[in-house]
């Protein structure tokens, strides 16, 4: 909690003949994060070279490319594939050699044929397009060419023309333009061309066909229908192959991926002629397991040792270490940036505070139930780890939304029968609205209190972070600067409290005066302000320009109220239009027109609340997230940690 998983740096040395079993064992455990060896002549690594792949690497990657090509042709994605039975790896390897080439050949043959048919269909479509203009002109297509003493012009013109030389002309008006065919003696070519040019003539090529244009067009349309039929047949065959072999293909992909990753692992090791050295990271709790397993597989012919960690220079991979209810929130952390190894991991705080903020914004029993139902429904359809995490985050948020809905006493904008326990958000909307209206000062003070507490917490975490990781004079300065910010916030609060009485805040205005017009609280406030300012300025004088952020960041929390109120307002307006204006008056005296109004009212009600639910997810989610990212994290969190990605694979379709 509050810190990532503890890591140990492991050094593995063995002779090259032990490479395969060691790699296989490491892969099986899926714990060793390999630190890639780079030939930079680092101290202690002089003369070492990057390793070469274990034999069989290129065959395996060739096969993998084939399998992935077939999967692509079928659009199979292993991520959204249900696991039915797990296959044995060694059996599968034999089957791959026997069956994969056959499947590949079949699929390749079919897809190749389909591509050819597609091309042919395109060609025929082009021919139809070429013939179409001539359909309106009487005369066979072979009559347009083969003359020595005549020239034929065919194309589109802007308007009808009259040619001053002897000719035969056909003119057809169409949607795409006026089509014209002119046949004239060869010696009159120039005159005809000139006349046509004036009418903005665009020539079209005369199709290389014979017969009546319409018949030729119909012939090609028939051909295209036949080709489409053939393509459908091929698609059916491919579908049959897909359903028959999909299981096999995803299993193949997994086995081959395992083989490729294992055989190519030496590319990340340092090697000499006879030995290899692998460096990497393992969770400290698993060091003993890994060491023992390696000793066992190699019969002790291996040297495994833990190296000291230099936190200043080593980039230690980071793996979260959170209780299960906080794990979905890791997604929100990764979206910002993974914590550094030496940093506090605020995931657990995010997992608690994010739903609370969401609930404060979208506190409505009705919307909460809709969201909860949506999450439970989507959980079955969306596959993949990240989507599942997102849904879990949303589920927690919707439960919190229901909880705060009870406190606010709201159901789709209607008041619930019980009294509200938090300041009221019920607006007076509609002509006959009665009631107290919203308790804006109460809501505002609630939001500001939340802001003060959250920001103070952020600064306290900042103190802890700096106290843990900085050294020397800088450490003291950084810790004091964070304390200075806390003093500034509370100093300003003391000053305000001693001057103006405010609801839901302590009232210090009645305290006895000490100096001039200042009472004890104001004096304390001024002292805190001055001390805070000195602390901040000692670390960096430039930070002084950030002082207004004290106000802006605290006031920023008023979005918890503002965004929430706007959502309540939309809900109440929808209710008023749908029920107060459309449905209600008609129910007193039902007529035929009244029924139409009632149906309209129901539609407005549904549409309005669906839209408001969507806005609620966006508003509640993004604004809560922003309060974390901008107002909370900037106080203490840096991020930029490297993801822990162990060498290995969580097998889904196969077993060793």
């Amino acid at each position, binding site marked *: 909690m509050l810190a990532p998983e503890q890591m140990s740096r492991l050094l593995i040395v063995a002779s090259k003949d032990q490479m395969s079993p060691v790699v296989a064992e490491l892969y099986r455990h899926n714990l060793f994060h390999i630190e890639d060896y780079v030939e930079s002549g680092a101290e202690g690594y002089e003369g070492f070279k990057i390793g070469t792949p274990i034999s069989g690497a290129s065959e395996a990657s060739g096969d993998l490319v084939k399998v992935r090509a077939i999967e692509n042709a079928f659009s199979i994605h292993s991520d959204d594939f249900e696991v039915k039975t797990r296959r044995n790896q060694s059996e599968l390897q034999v089957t791959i050699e026997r069956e994969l080439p056959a499947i590949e050949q079949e699929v390749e043959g079919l897809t190749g044929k389909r591509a050819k048919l597609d091309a042919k269909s395109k060609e025929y479509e082009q021919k139809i397009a070429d013939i179409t203009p001539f359909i309106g002109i009487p005369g066979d297509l072979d009559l347009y060419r083969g003359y020595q003493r005549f020239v034929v012009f065919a194309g589109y013109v802007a308007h009808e023309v009259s040619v001053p030389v002897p000719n035969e002309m056909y003119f057809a008006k169409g949607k795409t333009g006026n089509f014209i065919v002119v046949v004239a003696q060869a010696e009159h070519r120039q005159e005809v061309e000139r006349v046509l040019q004036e009418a903005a003539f665009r020539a079209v090529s005369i199709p290389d066909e014979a017969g009546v244009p319409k018949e030729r067009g119909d012939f090609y349309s028939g051909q295209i229908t036949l080709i489409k039929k053939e393509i459908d047949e091929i698609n059916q065959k491919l579908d049959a192959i897909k359903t028959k072999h999909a299981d096999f293909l995803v299993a193949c992909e997994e086995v081959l991926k395992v083989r490729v990753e294992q055989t190519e692992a030496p590319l990340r090791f340092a090697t000499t002629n006879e030995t290899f050295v692998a460096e990497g990271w393992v969770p400290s709790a698993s060091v003993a397991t890994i060491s023992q397993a390696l000793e066992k597989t190699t019969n002790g012919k291996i040297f495994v040792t833990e190296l000291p960690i230099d936190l200043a220079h080593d980039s230690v991979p980071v793996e979260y270490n959170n209780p299960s209810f906080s794990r979905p929130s890791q997604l929100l952390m990764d979206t*910002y940036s993974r914590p550094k190894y030496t940093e506090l991991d605020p995931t657990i705080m995010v997992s608690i505070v994010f739903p609370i903020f969401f609930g404060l914004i979208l506190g409505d029993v009705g919307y909460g139930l809709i969201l909860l139902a949506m999450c439970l429904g989507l959980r079955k359809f969306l596959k993949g780890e990240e989507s599942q995490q997102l849904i879990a985050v949303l589920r927690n948020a919707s439960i919190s939304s229901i909880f705060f809905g009870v406190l606010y006493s709201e159901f789709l904008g209607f008041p619930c029968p019980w009294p509200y326990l938090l300041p009221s958000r019920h607006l007076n909307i509609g002509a006959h609205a009665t009631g107290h209206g919203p308790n804006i000062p109460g809501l*505002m003070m609630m939001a500001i209190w939340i802001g003060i507490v959250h920001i103070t917490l952020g600064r306290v975490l900042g103190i802890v972070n700096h106290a843990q990781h900085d050294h020397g004079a800088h450490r003291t300065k950084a810790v004091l600067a964070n304390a200075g910010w806390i003093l500034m916030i509370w100093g300003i609060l003391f000053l305000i409290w001693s001057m103006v009485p405010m609801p839901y805040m302590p009232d210090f205005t009645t305290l006895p005066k000490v100096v001039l017009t200042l009472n004890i609280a104001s004096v304390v406030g001024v002292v805190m302000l001055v001390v805070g300012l000195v602390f901040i300025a000692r670390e960096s004088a430039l930070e002084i320009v950030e002082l207004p952020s004290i106000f*802006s960041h605290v*006031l*920023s929390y008023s979005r918890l109220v503002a965004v929430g109120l706007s959502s309540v307002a939309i809900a109440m307006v929808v209710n008023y239009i749908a029920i107060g204006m459309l449905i209600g008056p008609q129910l007193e005296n039902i007529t035929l027109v009244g029924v139409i109004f009632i149906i309209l009212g129901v539609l407005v009600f549904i549409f309005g609340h669906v839209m408001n639910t969507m806005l609620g997810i966006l508003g509640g989610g993004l604004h809560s997230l922003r309060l974390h990212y*901008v107002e909370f994290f900037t106080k203490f969190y840096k991020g930029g940690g490297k993801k822990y990605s162990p060498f290995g694979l969580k097998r889904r379709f196969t077993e060793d």
Partner: protein
Amino acid sequence: MVGEVVVAAITDVELMKASQIGMKALAAAIAIVGTAFAAAIAEMAIGSAAVGATAENKDVFGLVLLLTVIPETIVIFGLVVSLLLIF
């Protein structure tokens, strides 16, 4: 005579109250409109740059989301001011 003056004075007071409410509502509207436009203009530029940056490198999504929503505080302030004006 006196009665008429009193009635006129009461109507004047009511009118004044009504116009005060109207002015408050207008002031609240101006606060919202101004800040909303400001936030929109600011987010327009940041948003388009953010989408470009995300297209180049998907990892910066979290950071650019943060940068995009920073000006949103302006409109929240506007809303706070208008709420305080009205209630």
